[in-house]
């Protein structure tokens, strides 16, 4: 995994904001908004990065059909950012930019524009990166998006079968 010094510094900075894996959110019905509704905190380019990470980490399949790219995780993340203090919000947005352009060095294209398999290769590479801060930042981001994925109305009822008080009840 090749990363420029600038991207690395951005990732390390963001790690402090996301490694806690439990930042803040969540407004009601974040999944139930019109596709063209404006975001509160995200830029369109940043939202595309969130969708790419979601697609890479949470592909649909036999256990849960909903694919991460279709789980409105950009809406979830937008609500989350709005609930965060300004410093953490800036760091998380910085992380998204680092991911978008870090993929150019590693995969030859911006993360949001890559085919899904390459998006996955890039994200999984960061999750296993030898630098702990990079790994921690990516893990934190994926756990945050995982909270969004598992509370999506198409997923929550399935999770509720395992986690009865925690999901859907």
């Amino acid at each position, binding site marked *: 995994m090749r990363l420029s010094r600038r991207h690395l510094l951005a990732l390390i900075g963001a790690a402090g904001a996301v490694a806690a894996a439990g930042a803040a959110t969540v407004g009601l019905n974040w999944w139930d908004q019109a596709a063209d509704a404006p975001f509160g905190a995200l830029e369109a380019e940043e939202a595309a990065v969130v969708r790419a990470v979601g697609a890479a980490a949470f592909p649909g399949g036999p256990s849960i059909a909903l694919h991460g790219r279709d789980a409105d995780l950009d809406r979830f993340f937008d609500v989350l950012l709005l609930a*965060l203090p300004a410093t953490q919000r800036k760091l998380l947005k910085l992380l998204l930019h680092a991911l978008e352009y870090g993929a150019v060095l590693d995969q030859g294209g911006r993360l949001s524009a890559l085919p899904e398999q390459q998006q996955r290769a890039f994200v999984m590479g960061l999750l296993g990166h030898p630098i702990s801060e990079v790994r921690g930042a990516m893990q934190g981001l994926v756990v945050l998006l*995982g909270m969004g994925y598992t509370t999506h109305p198409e997923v929550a009822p399935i999770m509720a079968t395992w986690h009865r*008080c925690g999901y859907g009840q």
Partner: protein
Amino acid sequence: MSELKGLSPEAWRRAIAETIGPCGQPGYPTPDPLALLQPAPPAAGVEAVPTDREVTVEVVVVGGGPGGGSAALALCAAGLDVLLLEEGPARSYFRKNYAHTARYHMQEAGTMVARGSAMMPIAAGRGLGGSSLVNSALSFRPPRQVLDHWASLLDDPTLSFDALQPLYDEVSGIVGVGITRAEISGENNDLIVRGIEKLGLVGGLAPRGTPGCVGCGVCYFGCPSGGKGSTNLTFLPRATQLGLRIQAEVKVEGLLVEGGVVRGVRAVTVDPHTGARGATLTVRAQQVVLSAGAVGTPRLLWHAGLGPQLGPHTGEHLQVHPGSTIVAICDHEVQMWKGATQGAYFHHPDLPGVLPHTFSAPPEACLVAAGFLGDRWQEGLALLPRMCGMLLMVSDKGEGRVRAFGDGRADLVYNFADEDVDRIKRGLVEVAKVLQAGGAKDLYVPIHGVPMSRDPEALAAHLHDRTIRDFTLYAAHPMGTCRMGARIEDGVVDRQGRAFGLENLWIADASVFPSSLGVNPQLSTMVMGTRVGRALAARG
């Protein structure tokens, strides 16, 4: 519990038994669970602060968690006029996901991270009830050796194990501590108990402060059944019945200090939903008790510019009970999220100061910890019903410190001791043996470079050359940052919890512990809160 090393097996077993206390034995004063399920709502005592105002009380307590709640009860029982201020919400906002919990009930929205040897998130609760809202209520008593060490260190026999047991009995009774009941323990705990029994270790179902627990496995979101004896359902209702006034959703940002004497606090209202700041509240008080926790209290002191005045130990000696986790897959269904969240534990005679107990976390966190993402995401989802887990924490030798960034957020540093890292690794191997003896097969650890293993010895080999920077870390027991001492050269507060460097200032939370406890700190924090409250009241 390092002092346990070298004891005979029988003495060792007796020492461990003492950490459980007499709970569950006939005659122990367990409150009626139904009474706890229908407490006087603490929110009834909450007053509004629509506009800037100033109030005068005898004592102001800053923080509504286990330390502040227990101190407030002791003060009100003595007939003092007490106002308790809490930054978090006046009501509990429990919902079905951890992100929501973090927003409303975690300090700094769950984003506090210590730097140092490695990046380590550190959790601390907020809201009326503090960390007791979002913990699993494990209620061990510290080992005799720890408390006797404190008594010796401070030359104060009232801090000894034997001297403090009546206080532990008292707070255990208020919280409703009892051994996790078998009917709500769940397979995640039962599997561990089977492993413990098979290997002949000391341990079993754990003492918890959850008299009305229904075993729904989501303590860390906030108890949805009201079955947990958290401070908002125990100490605070009792204190409000004795006259305590509570003002939640106000953040204390400074102390009123005149000539080395604390005269009160400055606070501002904070909207729990938006974080927007509103009216100011000035509280003039004869005595000020800080109970914002081992991160929040020194952070406030440093942000207020009072750190140096309170001596060289202010914010120092941060200890956190660091540790690690194993997530394992079984052939049979476990349903990790059905049953008591953390209801089993064991001790290993070769690992003093290491306390392994049940692990549970939201499913997505378990899947990330075990590496089930991307191409393995669906596989991981399918394995969730067969997933079990156990974590361990160590009574740490490593230390860190707490300061405040310019914007008031906590600035945390923690540095691991090599000895602690070694004990974490060795503890993981013993945890692996217990899990496998109980029926688990595949072992996953959230440690970079360590593959899935089916053999504890192979796991040991993989762990051998890993450094702490390879670990995915998390800690939730900050303590020791305003420790008790015999004089200002040794600590921030005296044996009673009174600050050396400023008059009329007291501290009543886990920050006063003189050393790492080695057991979950809730019960001990309540004991210290009660002790400090009574000492203050006794001064008249």
